[in-house]
């Protein structure tokens, strides 16, 4: 009897208010959400939904409670419920969380690189390991679609535009002299090496309203933030040696480095087409400083100084077998400092200033040329953030440019203040449809003209991994300094871009196809009118398609890409007598880059095959239509390897490359020497070297 009472007492206690809560959890597109966390807030009770989104659990709680459901990739769901005696049926709906990785990205005209979250194309390590790039950013970008293969000059020639139509921008500030000074037929390297940069965005057109003064494209580079560790590194290679020390502390870092370049060993080992008198020698130093001034504010300072000299003999065109001596001394000083921070929950800002001074002292075949180019700029960008990645940016910039060039007895000067302001919004209309709409206003004091340029891009996500993108914009650029010396009664040159792009981004594969049409107007043109040497009556067009396929998956341990560009372009500008294709354009360009990682010997090997169809050239002989003939096709095979190893436990990379493996005598163009009797002798514009070998090593000590 007593036992019975006990049982009666125990039973009700265990049966006290067990209510069952069940249902199905699904997302806002109607699909079930498996393995979601289902819970009653402030209790232990709950469960996980099964593979079909079904869930069921019991609770002894009573009264007013908060029921919740959550899952990775979704916004949490919570709802107040009242538990009485009856079972509860509830079907929560979880909203899919917009994740940066899923979002549509404006891609028309843009190759976003090194940023893991977006359309990754090129990381600094990709640049250094791409055969044929010679560890130079521009060398590597030339393996991407939209760029021409130009072996005799520095710069990026993008979609029918010459090198002056592309600007290099570092941390939002234009770099006045990104390459070393030009030397006849010897392409110069960039002043910046790839490992400075965290982000590389190569825009082949249609770029944002934040940048301007480039008719064709912008190479937008973002430097690294605070260094990873304290370390000292040394590098040595066939053209010189460098050393740098980086000190890192809690909220900042400083790196100080020096570089000595002497290309004599390189030119001794490699057969060169250039007749050197003094192989290039250069000294440079740099300081890179980073400091977090507040929890959210970052100050960056970057300053470099370099001095170089070289002299060579190159074939002149005044008479056959003429050798002209070209001597050059150059000093360049560059400093840029930027600060970014947030100043309230929804606002962030950026401030940047830079100053550069470039001095050239040249003697070209007896003619003395001295030039000084000084540029100071300041820029501010304010961003107002709205929920979920929408934002509005606006800001302004000022650039003061002072150029003084003495060419023999002539003197050309440019003294200019350039002002611009811009407004741009990034707006995600839905998770699948994004728009970037911007406008830029510019004024140049030297030509005393203004312009207003609209820039619009749209992107629509057509599938989980694919999207289409459109871009349209007006792009203005003031005439080159060499024309401004002659007259300032000129307008901005203009290009209108229309771009359509389709992109598919698999986990380890990328496919891109882009169609573009650029309409050039108001290009500087020599006139026949003796009293107005120059005006803006030139125009042109550039149309084409760029295709890109990158695959890191199909072939094990391999990463390859194929890029193909087709371009049809003509312009009537400068001294062109008729509308014609410029000499720096190949109708078809193809790059095949292949990289293979041999893990057993921790070595990466790379092969690049580049092809470009013949380029037009100017033939002064009679009865030849202007730019109607083409040079032979260009073929180049390069190999490179880089081995990761350690010396006394320190991270070391040894790299070597062989460019133009087949020793092919490529021809970039022709020059004609007037023999005086109506005949012309033709000489080739050749690459600076044929098969060339390069080797170097780099060690990082921590």
């Amino acid at each position: 009897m007593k036992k019975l009472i006990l049982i009666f007492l125990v039973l009700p206690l265990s049966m006290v208010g067990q209510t069952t809560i069940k249902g199905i959890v699904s997302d806002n597109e109607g699909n079930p959400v498996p393995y979601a966390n289902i819970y009653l807030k402030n209790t232990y009770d709950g469960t996980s939904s099964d593979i079909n989104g079904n869930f069921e659990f019991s609770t002894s709680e009573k009264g007013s409670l908060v029921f919740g459901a959550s899952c990775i990739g979704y916004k949490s769901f919570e709802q107040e419920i009242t538990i009485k005696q009856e079972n509860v049926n509830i079907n929560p709906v979880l909203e899919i969380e917009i994740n940066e990785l899923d979002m549509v990205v404006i891609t028309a005209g843009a190759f976003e690189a090194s940023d893991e979250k977006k359309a990754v194309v090129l990381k600094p390590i990709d640049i250094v390991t791409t055969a044929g790039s010679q560890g130079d950013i521009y060398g590597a970008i030339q393996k991407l679609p939209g760029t021409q293969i130009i072996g005799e000059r520095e710069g990026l020639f993008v979609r029918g535009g010459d090198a002056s139509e592309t600007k290099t921008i570092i941390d939002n500030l234009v770099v006045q002299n990104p390459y070393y000074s030009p030397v006849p037929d010897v392409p110069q390297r960039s002043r910046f090496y790839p490992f400075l940069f965290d982000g590389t965005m190569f825009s082949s057109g249609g770029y944002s309203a934040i940048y301007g003064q480039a008719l064709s494209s912008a190479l937008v580079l973002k430097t690294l933030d605070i260094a990873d560790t304290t370390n000292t590194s040394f590098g040595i290679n066939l053209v010189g040696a460098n050393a740098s020390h980086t000190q890192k502390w809690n909220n900042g870092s400083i790196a100080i480095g020096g570089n000595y370049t002497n290309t004599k060993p390189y030119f001794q080992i490699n057969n060169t087409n250039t007749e050197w008198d003094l192989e290039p020698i250069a000294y440079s130093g740099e300081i890179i400083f980073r400091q977090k001034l507040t929890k959210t504010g970052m100050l960056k300072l970057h300053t470099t100084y370099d001095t170089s000299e070289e002299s060579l003999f190159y074939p002149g065109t005044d008479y056959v077998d003429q050798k002209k001596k070209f001597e050059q001394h150059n000093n360049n000083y560059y400093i840029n400092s930027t600060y970014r921070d947030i100043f309230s929950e929804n606002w962030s800002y950026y401030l940047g200033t830079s100053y550069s001074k470039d001095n050239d002292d040249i003697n070209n075949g007896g003619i003395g040329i001295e030039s000084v180019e000084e540029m100071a700029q300041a820029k501010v960008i304010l961003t107002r953030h709205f929920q979920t990645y929408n934002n509005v940016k606006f800001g302004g910039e000022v650039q003061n440019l002072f150029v003084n060039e003495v060419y023999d007895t002539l003197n050309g000067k440019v003294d200019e203040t350039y002002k611009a302001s811009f407004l741009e919004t990034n707006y995600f209309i839905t998770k699948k449809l994004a728009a970037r709409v911007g406008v830029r206003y510019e004024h140049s004091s030297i030509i005393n003209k203004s312009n207003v340029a609209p820039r619009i891009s749209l992107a629509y996500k057509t599938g989980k991994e694919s999207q289409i993108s459109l871009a349209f914009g007006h792009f203005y650029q003031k005439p080159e300094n060499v024309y401004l010396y002659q007259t300032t009664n000129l307008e901005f040159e203009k290009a209108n871009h229309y771009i359509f792009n389709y992109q598919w981004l698999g986990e380890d594969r990328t496919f891109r196809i882009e169609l573009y049409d650029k309409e050039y107007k108001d290009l500087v043109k020599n006139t026949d009118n003796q009293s107005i040497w120059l005006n803006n009556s030139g125009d042109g067009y550039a149309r084409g398609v760029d295709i890109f396929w990158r695959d890191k998956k199909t072939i094990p341990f391999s990463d390859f890409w194929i890029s193909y560009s087709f371009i049809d372009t003509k312009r009537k500008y400068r001294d062109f007598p008729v509308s014609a294709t410029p000499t720096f354009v190949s109708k078809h360009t193809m790059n095949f880059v292949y990289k293979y990682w041999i893990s057993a010997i921790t070595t990466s090997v790379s092969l690049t095959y580049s092809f470009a169809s013949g380029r037009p050239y100017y033939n002064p002989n009679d009865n030849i239509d202007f730019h109607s003939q083409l040079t032979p096709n260009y073929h180049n095979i390069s190999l490179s390897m880089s081995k990761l190893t350690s010396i006394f436990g320190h991270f070391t990379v040894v790299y070597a490359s062989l460019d133009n493996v087949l020793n092919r005598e490529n021809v970039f163009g022709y020059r004609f020497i007037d023999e005086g009797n109506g005949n012309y002798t033709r000489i080739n514009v050749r690459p600076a070297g044929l098969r060339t070998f390069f080797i170097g090593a780099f060690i990082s000590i921590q």
Partner: protein
Amino acid sequence: MKKLSILIILTLSLSISYAGGEKYVQKMESTIAKLDTASSLNSFLQVANMFERIAAVEKTEWLPSYYAAYAYVIANYMESSKKKRDLILDKAVVLTSESDSLNPDNVEITLLKAYIYSARLSVKPGSRGREYGIKTANMLSKALEMDNNNPRYYLLKGQDLFYTPPMFGGDKQEAKKHFEKALNKYDVFQLETSIHPNWGKDRTEYLLKQCTKEE
């Protein structure tokens, strides 16, 4: 007999109405048992959810969010999609910082942070090797300074040495020594409570076997 019944009733009612404390410990013990027997991606995700529910109730206890984070770290290794792995690790990071704010300068949490860095690296070793290799090593050093007797330090350090390619400082012989030391430390490790972290011995034994296989 009457006294006995009253006693029994009181005990029963006490054990039912007493929330937190002992109930918390029991709940933790049973969930930890589920963690020890979990083997598939989904079972780990479910266990993580269970710990998250406990963490939501026990707002002053660091262990529930610690274990939830740990369960997510193990789960991430079973997920094949890189994108999803990063999302799972993001969750682990959030939970670890919640745990950290409840019990700062704790060696187990520091070791868990190192484990997360190591997992991040393994998602994309090519591009993350340098950055996360350094972060993992620094965090492990910090843990070693806090406590040089924690077996999980030797497991994680050994794991790091085992999987890192030799050219980046990996060393299977050194790894083996660390695993052996870890096993010694496991044998003598004194658990503060029955629900304090005690994982890793099986993993250490497995990895040690891998070392000897390779010889």
